């Protein structure tokens, strides 16, 4: 096989995203990363929830599943456990991931199942036309918050760090090259990786300008093995650092754990079990 090109992974369906939507860049970066890693298309499965960003799997020519709102992590976990040889990518939005689906992240982290979770965070509910999301800053005015939001935004990376996710990074749709590189590393990471992509919604909450100003690469010399320093950097909400905050490659993945369990479990058969139940 010749080395694949990014376009080989492009699906037959044209993305339905608005022109300029940050998610286009994420799609490009994912296709490039897949090509760079030369992953066979049939060995890739992309799972998602519901939202603009969650339409993602339809735009790739791989296995895909467009599930229900907020359940992408259990869904993707099921795929990875069911088919350990498959590279599983979970994608979705900030609403899907941090609002209705927020309860699943700590448990994916506990399992350290080997999947790459890309959250396209636009700090808004794009699909349902512009309601505030858990990462919307305080005071955002919308039809659903006519007097401004009254809640403080969440800090997804700090949360991921507190869950001890084993690979944590932040990207920006304005920087496709850097994003591609991080995706490559995340895809290679053995375990659960969570990448927050600042991916503006040009239609309901255009933050390109803002992010161009406040984003900046992680300080040179940041050691991704140092969780406390990662926490400090994540706590900085003025500057939004881009790059790999944290990485721990030494933990067993969930599939490895299962191998150990299977080795531990005493061999048996159905007949043997019935035998043991005999009076």
């Amino acid at each position: 096989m010749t080395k694949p090109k990014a376009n080989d992974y492009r699906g037959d369906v044209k993305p339905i995203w608005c022109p300029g939507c940050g998610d286009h860049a994420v799609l490009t970066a994912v296709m490039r990363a897949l090509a760079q890693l030369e992953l066979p298309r049939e060995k890739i499965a992309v799972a998602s929830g519901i939202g603009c960003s969650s339409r993602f799997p339809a735009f790739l020519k791989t296995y895909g599943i467009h599930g229900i709102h907020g359940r992408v992590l259990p869904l993707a976990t099921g795929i990875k456990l069911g088919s350990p040889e498959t590279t599983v990518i979970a994608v979705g939005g900030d609403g899907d991931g941090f609002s209705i689906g927020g309860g699943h992240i700590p448990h994916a982290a506990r399992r350290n199942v080997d999947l790459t979770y890309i959250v396209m965070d636009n700090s808004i509910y794009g699909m349902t036309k512009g309601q505030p999301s858990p990462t919307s800053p305080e005071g955002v005015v919308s039809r659903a918050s006519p007097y401004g939001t009254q809640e403080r935004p969440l800090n997804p990376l700090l949360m991921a760090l507190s869950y001890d996710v084993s690979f944590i990074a932040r990207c920006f749709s304005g920087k496709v090259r850097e994003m591609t590189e991080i995706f490559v590393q995340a895809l290679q990471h053995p375990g659960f990786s969570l990448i927050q992509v600042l991916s503006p919604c040009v239609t309901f909450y255009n933050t390109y300008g803002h992010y161009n100003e406040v984003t900046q690469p992680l300080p040179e010399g940041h050691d991704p093995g140092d969780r406390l320093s990662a926490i400090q950097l994540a706590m900085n909400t003025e500057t939004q650092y881009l790059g790999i905050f944290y990485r721990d490659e030494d933990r067993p993945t969930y599939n490895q754990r299962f191998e150990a369990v299977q080795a531990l479990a005493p061999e048996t058969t159905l007949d043997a079990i019935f035998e043991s139940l005999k009076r």
Partner: protein
Amino acid sequence: MEQPDATVVVRIAGEGGEGTITLGDLFTRIAACSGLEIYSFRTYSAEIRGGQVMYQTRLGIDRVMTEGDEANVLVAMNQQAWIEEHEDLCKNAAIIHDAHVQVPNDSHQGFPIPAEAIAQELEWARGKNFVLLGALGWFFRLDLDVAADLVRQQMRHHPESLEKNLAALRRGYTFAQQTYPEPFPFALDLPDTVEERILLSGADAMALGALAAGCDFYAGYPITPATPTMESLARYLPAFGGKYVQVEDEMAAINMAIGASFAGRRALTATSGPGLSLMTEGLGLASMAEIPLVLINVQRAGPSTGLPTKTSQGDLFLSLYGGHGDAPRFVLAPDSVKDCYFKTIYAFSLAERYQMPVIVLSDQAMASRQATTPLPGEPWNGPLARLTPTPEELAGDYQRYAFTDTGLSPMTHPGVPGGMYLAESLEHNAYGYPDQTPGNHEQMMRKRARKVETAREMLADWRMTSRRWGDRGAPFGIMGWGSTRGAVREVTKRLQAQGIHVEAIYPHTLLPMPDQAIVDFLSTKRAILVPELNFSGQFGRMVEHRYYKELDERNVHIYQRKKEQGVPFKVREIYEATLEMIDEERKLWNKEHGEIARIFDTVQRLGEASGTFEKDGGHCD
């Protein structure tokens, strides 16, 4: 004691914390190992530890089908046991009780055992239940060595207390032997040969059925009374190359199972009412994206948290209709412990072949009961597998959701080259891509629904779709579902013995209903009784609706016997309801025809003899 039908009901009651359940469980096992057929049932208290609990086991020489009604023997571990249980005893019942329990001796036979004193003497206060176990062993003339072996095996994880318990057991046995040397009034003749039987719980039957069906993925969240099935799978799945995950909630459970199934696994989840409510959305996804999935729902009494440890059949409507939009599924209803095994296998066959969610409805009573069962044979025609695309189809223009006559389209999974597709929760076209045009939507709705029709045709051939017994063509029928079958079985047997002709049918697929079998059943009926364990009579309403044409044409009357108290039917309750139905029909006939039809003779005779057909407990009469 010659009649093979003889059974004895032993009820053991006491504090949950003082080993009541252990006592019941061990006694049951020892009796089974001695060659008796057994059938047990237990209630739990609302308290976490302690609280009054009850374990009932029925021993028989032939196969036993229910836990029985009034008890013949009560083992009263504490005073509360007498207070709560004495009204549920047959006349001249034997009361084996701790010496300090006050038992008025009028209509019962008391057998005090100073269990607490003996235990204290042994400096093993916790051994009270083993003293009583020993006494029971003597009363039923069970072999002390058999008993000791079993205790050794069951208690092997508690070596620190094993010897003390064995000592208590022996002391109890000897004490009873010395104090009550005469034959025990309710002892059964032990058979000479011990036939091959397994001692199976409904919960384990489902776990083993899953293994037999090739299940290799389980995701679930603990919930009473579904947890034991989950725990058995936790133990066995790894040895079968399967994976077991205890997840964070029921949404995760069903979605993780869906993911694994998408990846090619045979996936299962199990839950109870509140969990099923939470899984409703996921069920719709499996139905829409055509992903095989088996969901075991072990019913408990609702609504809401309800009575979490008590039984019910109240989730039928939710299983049939739960989901927004029209989302096809199958619903199966096993009707015995052994049937739990087979229906779980069939559930996988249906799920995999028809790429749809399948709900299997068990309940607390059936899951927690233990019964002696012959080894199950091979399942019929299965387990079936998925339809997969041919190499030509994969090489060509593979359509995951291709429109076909059967509604079934070939399914691939990650790893299969050329089989890449999108599984979609949105309405989609034959490739799986979103398609919201009006025509496509209606066509796809039809495709998905067609699969149920295809299955209906196949199922018509299956042994699995219903169980029918009794007097073929009798004018009176009983129609029920699920765990109440044992009680109905006993009722038909008893009626038959009394010369009253009754026929019964238990459908095993509630969606789709085995219409042919049921219409055939109804075709000879004048009236049917529909007993069920829920408040609104969900099954009866469904039957009434589905067959209203047939029912009306032949003027078949439906009598619903509903019960929603958290406990199973007593045989007597269904027996009485049946006689009342027939009596009611007699009156109608009388009114219409001015004379009494012969078929009612027996019933009237019975009615006159007993007034309200009361008290007719197993071994007591």
